[in-house]
């Protein structure tokens, strides 16, 4: 006996949602989708696992290069990006809450803020980190051209740095595309208290992106 279905005449799309016929109930479909997506998240974790393994191996082999490399990074930008992503995680979770309460406009606002945070992350990364660094020669492997290196293994540090952060940035972009799609469909009324699977799943993906950065930040920026 749900009081969540609206009483005004044209039923919004979310209230008219019918679950796929091979599931017994919509609840089951929701649970299955969530479980399936958690499985996918494990694959993402293991994907980054390769990077973390490489980091772990090379940090142990070349600690001076890692120390020097970390000093060449500015923790303020890394920390700023961490804050940005944490806030965006919060707004993403809030948007799910708003959808569950049928506060459509607030949900959309939260999604927009999440998108803006993602864009801010990418902007900080590109404008204050990648471009300044690349232009002075702080590049991976054989592309390395920075004249003031002390440790001869510094190019390897940059390889790990760029691989890790660029693959993470690619995931940020993918997350933003998913959020944009969800935002668009929210404006069309697809999601509501009884049907918000896609919002939930996009939220999970975005939180994972945040989690990866939570690990990358101290590992890359805070070595002493």
């Amino acid at each position, binding site marked *: 006996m749900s009081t969540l279905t609206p009483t005004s005449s044209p039923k919004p799309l979310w209230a008219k949602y019918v679950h*796929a*016929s*091979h*599931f017994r109930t919509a609840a*089951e479909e929701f*649970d*299955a*989708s969530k*479980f*399936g997506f958690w*499985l*996918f998240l*494990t*694959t*993402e974790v*293991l*994907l*980054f*696992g*390769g*990077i973390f*393994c*490489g980091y772990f*191996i*090379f940090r142990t*082999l*070349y600690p001076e*290069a890692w120390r020097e490399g970390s000093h060449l990074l500015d923790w303020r930008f890394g920390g700023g990006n961490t804050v940005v992503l944490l806030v965006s995680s919060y707004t993403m979770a809030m948007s799910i809450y708003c959808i569950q309460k049928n506060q459509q406009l607030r949900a959309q606002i939260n999604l927009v803020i999440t998108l803006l945070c993602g864009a801010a992350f990418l902007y900080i990364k590109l404008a204050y980190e990648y471009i300044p660094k690349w232009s002075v020669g702080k590049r*991976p*492997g*054989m*592309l390395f051209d920075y004249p003031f290196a002390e440790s*001869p*293994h510094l*190019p*390897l540090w940059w*390889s*790990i740095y*760029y*691989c890790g952060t660029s*693959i993470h940035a690619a995931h940020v972009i993918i997350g933003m595309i998913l959020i944009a799609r969800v935002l668009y469909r929210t404006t069309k009324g697809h999601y509501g208290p009884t049907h918000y699977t896609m919002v939930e799943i996009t939220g999970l993906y975005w939180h994972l992106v945040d989690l990866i950065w939570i690990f990358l930040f101290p590992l890359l920026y805070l070595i002493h």
Partner: protein
Amino acid sequence: MAYTAENLTPHPHDAHGHHAHASYLEPKGGVIATIWDWATTVDHKKIGVMYLFTILFMFFLGGVAAMAVRIELLDPVRISATGVISGQFFKADASNINIGNNFYNRLFTLHGAIMVFMVIVPSIPASLGNFFLPLMLGAKDVAFPRLNLLSWYIYVFGSIFAVCSIILGGVDTGWTFYTPYSTTTDAEHPKVVLMVLAAFILGFSSILTGLNFIVTVHKLRAPGMGWFDMPLFIWAIYSSAIIQVLATPVIGITLLLLTFERIFRIGIFDPALGGDPVLYQHFFWFYSHPVVYVMILPGMGIISDVLAVQSHKKIFGYRAIAFASLGIAAVSFIVWGHHMFTSMSELASTVFSALTFLVAIPTAVKVFNWIATLYKGSIAMNTPMLYALIFLFLFSIGGLTGLPLGALSTDLHLHHSYFVVAHFHYVMMGGTIMALMAGIHHWWPKMFGKMYNEMWGMVGAMLVFIGFNITFLSQFLLGTQGMPRRYASYVDEFQFLHVVSTVGSWVLFLGFVVHFFTFVTSLAMGKKAPANPWGGLTLEWVAASPPIEHNFEHEPIVKSGPYDFDTTVPPHWDPKDYPIPAANLTAGGRPKMAHSPDKER
């Protein structure tokens, strides 16, 4: 006694019209409409069939490459390949050797890459798994049907990438793409990068299929079907799906880093820049070892089902086999170093060697349980049973020859020799492919509603068996005598065995040709198959042959175990379909119970 249809509430109003009761193979309109229907289908059965035929086609391509490799190896020195090009067959010429070796390298890479990534890994899960997982669970489809279709398209897309790489001249790095060769080989970027990207893309197909299967098994079982009421094929598919989900992303990142290393020279695998090529091997084998269990586990699942049904006997040690499947999946993650004994430190090699022995335990449990299943069973000698017996024999050889390879001291001599080649062909081909053939024949009536010619099926099976053994048994001997793998030329002493091996490959090929014709004639003019020709008890035999679009008329409810032959009469079963020797029939024409009456459990 029989479960299913009678006990259920009536089906809700059917909005699908008359097509709801037509078989899934029934075309929906003209040619274009049918093609469009198949291209956009989310029906797991159609997707499974598409996978099956594509995989068999890829198997043919990889097999042709293998035949070419074996022809090259007929002679110790002569380079047949350039002989073909220059028209001077069987002429040894020093100037040709480099070209010939290069071509040979591309050939075996082609064979390996196609067989591993495009045939064996998806072979059983994507084709038979897709088709039968929902049917065996009593579900209408897998959990995410559209994702299933996406998996299929990703598979096709990745295969096209691979084919493009081959057309552009092919890669010569071996299917393992070891650094530093793969990052520095003269082959232009596009070829290596394309092949690597192909494997990367195919990995996604594997992940999504595994994901789909895990959720389906957890969420879509029929009412009354607990975990231990599922057929063992499902347990096997489930275990291999876990491996697919956990291991495949690591090959993804590995290939991505390999691409960066090749294009940008980032240095993580390059010792000159501080990296480590063995790190690449660790990354690569962390996936590639578990994936060999993805290859074999579904095959083992098929064998469990085929042996039980075709000997009309309860599987021996159901729970042991189920847990052994999970056990193999678990152990598979901690043994990958045994591919790298000659690259790693002594300490790590010792640890990995010790851990590798663990895998033998659940595997042996399974093999013994299968043999015990056959004991006192009412064995039907038909093609599936024949293939299952072939599997038992060949897989045991393959598994046992894994032991000298897992033991560190002997592996140092056998590494990279033909012994390894023979070993993995015995397990991969003698294991998975034989199981695939068993499964195809066992479920052919269900999938296509037609029977195949039993005699020719068995002829094909025997040819395959004989040809296979001639081809690969000789390679064990070559390996222990010192023949290295991936060599186009060799010393004269090895020629005899190489010729034997090549002749065996022709017999093997002939066997598959026979099967090809069996399949084609069956589809064209095979006898109509009954719903349950073998008297199986699992839910797929409840469905029609071939199944309707929604699999079952009414959602089935499970009221007996999957192999309770001693207490249950199979659904839709007619003894005339399943000829049992008269000595095993009671007076009333029903089969005698497989166990003696005074030894009731």
